């Protein structure tokens, strides 16, 4: 009952009001995906650096 009433109530409302819901949804999607991709790329860089460090360490130990 509640949902039907609210649906009827929203029908005649100006489009700008619901624009904010659309804006919120798409902002959330893009922010979340960007944060995840940046985090992934940082993690990848850190691991690559650590890997190079360890390889150099092994080379040093073996040459001694």
């Amino acid at each position, binding site marked *: 009952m509640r949902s039907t009433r609210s649906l009827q109530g929203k029908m005649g409302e100006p489009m700008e009001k619901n624009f904010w819901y659309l804006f919120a949804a798409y902002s959330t*999607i893009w922010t*979340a995906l960007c944060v995840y991709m940046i985090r*992934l790329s940082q993690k990848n860089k850190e691991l690559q650096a650590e890997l190079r460090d360890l390889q150099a360490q092994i080379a040093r130990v073996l040459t001694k």
Partner: protein
Amino acid sequence: MQKLWSIIRSSIFHAIIMYVSMIIAIYLVFIYAPTEKMQGIVQKIFYFHVSSAITMFFAFFVVCVASIMYLWKDSDWWDAVALSAAEIGVVFCTLVLITGPIWARPIWGTWWSWDPTLTLTLVLWLIYVAYLMLRIEVYDPKRARFAAILGIVGFVDVPLIRWSVEKWRTLHPKPVLIQEGGTTGLPFAMWQTFVVCLVAFLLLFFYLLRERVSVAQSRHALEGLRHEIDEILAG
């Protein structure tokens, strides 16, 4: 020919294809697709919400298959694929759980309802968050095997969600993409827009999976090297 093949396989090529498809998808959603008469502009959330949901289901399907392969072959690569797909699946599941309520607020008049579809989706999210918590940082074969079983069993929730949308009495809208008899409930322009969005999201999934598997493999190589150093120092 070999050069062309290496370009096609490269990460930058995948990234470009993914960005172009995403830009086309955004153009279609905001410029090309007509505004729905009943729901108005807020209906446009549907394109990315449903695409995220289908990508999430696909990601968890990959977790299930890769987990079976890991238990069968005992290969680290399959374990890396399962772990990576689970993490990306949780990202898309989070998007579904956030964009759904944002759409529901102006349409249903409430952010959330404990209805079967929504609750089962939340359960799915919790199952795969538990999977990720099992796999935090340290690689342990025992934990990996237990997580693989959880990844397989957790997938049972996916057909349940689909079934709940079709058969149970739920607030969630009934399927409009493909209805009984193979017809679609969407106008052609909306259907085209949705298909492009879905393709863009699946390309994004494959791009992220490739990058995440590379991270998992680097971590594994790192642990192998650390072990090697410990052996050298001890011996």
